[in-house]
C-alpha cells in the first residue's frame, strides 16, 4: 500500500459538511484547552528573584562594616569588608588573583572535561549492560560516598606534588557523579518511549541515538552539573593540601598562602572569589543549559522559585 494512497482524500471530502463541522468543533476545543502563552515578565522576575538577595547581601555587608567600625575588633581576627575588598584589589593588582583564577579554572575545566570523556562511555556501558552494572554499579555509587579529599594523600604519594595529583583527585571526584547521573538518566527513560521506538521500526543503534540518549539528557545534564560541583570541590581540596612542588598557583594555594601569613582578609577574599566562580559557572553554563532543556520538554516548574 503506497504512502500517498493512504492520505488521499476521496474527491470532495474536504468540503463534506460533516467533516467541516468536526474541524470547527476540534478547533474550538483546541482553542479552549490551550492557554495563550504568557510572556514571562522579565522585569517582575528581576524584582522578585534578583533584587532581594542582592539587597540582603548589601545589608549584610553594611551590618558587618558597622560592627567593625563600632566594636573595632582585632583586624587579624575580624577584618572589615573594606579590608577584604582591599585584599581582592591587592591580589588583582599584583596579578596573583588573575593567575590563581586562571590556573584553577583551567584545571577545573580540563579535569571536568576529562571526567566527562571518561565518565560518559562508562556510564552508557553500565546503563546498558546489566551484568556489568550489577557488578560495578554499587562500587561507583560507593566511590561517590568517599570524600575525594581522601585521595589527595594517595595521589601525592603516587604523583608527587605535580599537576597529575590535582587531576587525579578531580577525576576521582567527578567521574562517579557523571556515571551515576547518566545511569539514572537512562533509567528514567520511560519504557513507553523505547517501545514506541521499536514499534516505529528503530533497531538497537537508532533506538539508542534517536530515542534513549535524547530522553536521558535531563539526567545526564544533572549528572554533569553535579560532576562539575565535585570537580570544583576536589580541586580546591587538592590545591589547599598539595602546595609546593611543581604545582602551579591556584585559588587553593592562594587560600593556603593567606592562611600561612595569618592574613584573614586575604583568606576571606579568596573564599569570596571561589564562591563567585562556583556561582558564576552555575549561572552561566549549567543553568541556561538546564533551563533550555527543561523548557523544551515542558518540565520547567512555574517561576515561583
Amino acid at each position, binding site marked *: 500500500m503506497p504512502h500517498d494512497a493512504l492520505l488521499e482524500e476521496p474527491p470532495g471530502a474536504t468540503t463534506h459538511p460533516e467533516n467541516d463541522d*468536526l474541524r470547527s468543533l476540534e478547533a474550538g*476545543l483546541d482553542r479552549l484547552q490551550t492557554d495563550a502563552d504568557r510572556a514571562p515578565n522579565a522585569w517582575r522576575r528581576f524584582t522578585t528573584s534578583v533584587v532581594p538577595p542582592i539587597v540582603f547581601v548589601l545589608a549584610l555587608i553594611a551590618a558587618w562594616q558597622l560592627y567593625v567600625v563600632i566594636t573595632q575588633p582585632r583586624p587579624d581576627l575580624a577584618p572589615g569588608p573594606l579590608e577584604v575588598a582591599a585584599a581582592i584589589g591587592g591580589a588583582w593588582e599584583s596579578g596573583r588573583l588573575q593567575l590563581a583564577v586562571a590556573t584553577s579554572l583551567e584545571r577545573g575545566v580540563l579535569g571536568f572535561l576529562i571526567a566527562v570523556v571518561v565518565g560518559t562511555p562508562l556510564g552508557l556501558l553500565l546503563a546498558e549492560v546489566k551484568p556489568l552494572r550489577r557488578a560495578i554499579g554499587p562500587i561507583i555509587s560507593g566511590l561517590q560516598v568517599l570524600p575525594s579529599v581522601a585521595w589527595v594523600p594517595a595521589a601525592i604519594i603516587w604523583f608527587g606534588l605535580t599537576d597529575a595529583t590535582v587531576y587525579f583527585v578531580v577525576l576521582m571526584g567527578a567521574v562517579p557523579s557523571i556515571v551515576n547521573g547518566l545511569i539514572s538518566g537512562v533509567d528514567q527513560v520511560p519504557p513507553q518511549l523505547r517501545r514506541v521506538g521499536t514499534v*516505529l521500526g*528503530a533497531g538497537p543503534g*537508532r533506538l539508542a541515538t534517536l530515542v534513549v540518549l535524547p530522553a536521558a539528557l535531563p539526567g545526564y545534564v544533572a549528572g554533569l552539573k553535579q560532576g562539575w560541583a565535585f570537580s570544583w570541590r576536589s580541586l580546591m581540596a587538592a590545591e589547599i593540601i598539595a602546595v609546593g612542588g611543581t604545582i602551579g598557583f591556584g585559588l587553593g594555594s592562594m587560600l593556603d598562602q593567606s592562611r600561612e601569613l595569618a592574613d584573614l582578609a586575604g583568606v576571606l577574599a579568596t573564599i569570596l572569589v571561589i564562591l563567585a566562580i562556583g556561582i558564576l559557572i552555575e549561572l552561566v553554563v549549567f543553568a541556561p543549559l538546564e533551563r533550555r532543556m527543561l523548557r*523544551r520538554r515542558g*518540565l520547567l516548574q512555574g517561576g515561583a522559585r
Partner: protein
Amino acid sequence: MSSQTADHTAIRIERLGKRFGAGPLVLDDVNLSIEAGEFVCLLGASGCGKSTLLNLIAGLDRPTAGTIDVPTQGAAVMFQESALMPWLTARQNVELALRLRGVPRAARRGGALELLDTVNLADAAEKRPHELSGGMRQRVALARALAQDRPVLLMDEPFAALDAITRDLLHEELERVWRRTGRTIVFVTHNVREAARLGQRVVLMSSRPGRVAGEWRIAETEGRRIESPEVAALSIEITTQLRKEIRRNAA
C-alpha cells in the same frame, strides 16, 4: 513475526497462551481472526490481558503457546499515553516515524504536515508535546501511527485519559480516518459504550486467565453516535455480560 495470511484475514490468532516467567497464565487459548479493514474492539476489565494480547500482536512480546499471523508489513501501535518524544515538536515527532520508515529527508516535512492536517493539527505543527492538550497529543500520536503506513493499527486505550468531550470528538475523528484509509483496527478499551460506538465487532475478554468470553457484531455502523439507541441497547447487553464476568471474581 509470521507469514502473510490468507486473502481477507488480516490477523489470525490460534490457541494463543501467555504467561510471564513463573507467574499465572495471563492468556489462555485465545482464538480470534480479524479481517482486513475490520474495526474490532477488545473489551475487558482491568488486568484481563488486553494489553498483553495487543503487545503479542504487535510483536513486542512472544507468545508462550499458539500462533499469531499478522501482515508482513507489521502493525502500527498507539498507546494510552501519547508517548510523544517530549524534545521534538509535533511535526518532528511525525517526521521521526517517516525517517524510521525510510522516507527520504526531502519528503518528510511535507508528509508530516500533510498527516498533521489530516488530524486537523496543521496549526500546531511547531508546538512541543507539553504545549498541547491531551486530545491534541493523541491526535499527533494518531498522525504518527498513520505515518508508519502499516495496514494494521493497534490501539491500547488511546482515549482513556481524555475528558469526555474530547473523547467523543476523537471517536468521530478516528472513524473518519478509518473510513478514509481502510486500515484494520484493533481497539482496546474498558468502556462498553466506546466499544459499542466504534467497533464493527466487539470482543469481550474474561479475566484470569484472559479468554474470549463473548462477541457482538454491529451490522450498520454508518452515522452512529454514542448516544444512539442502538449503541445504548448493545451497551446494556454487553454490560450485563461484563458484570457477570466481574462478579465471578468476587468470591
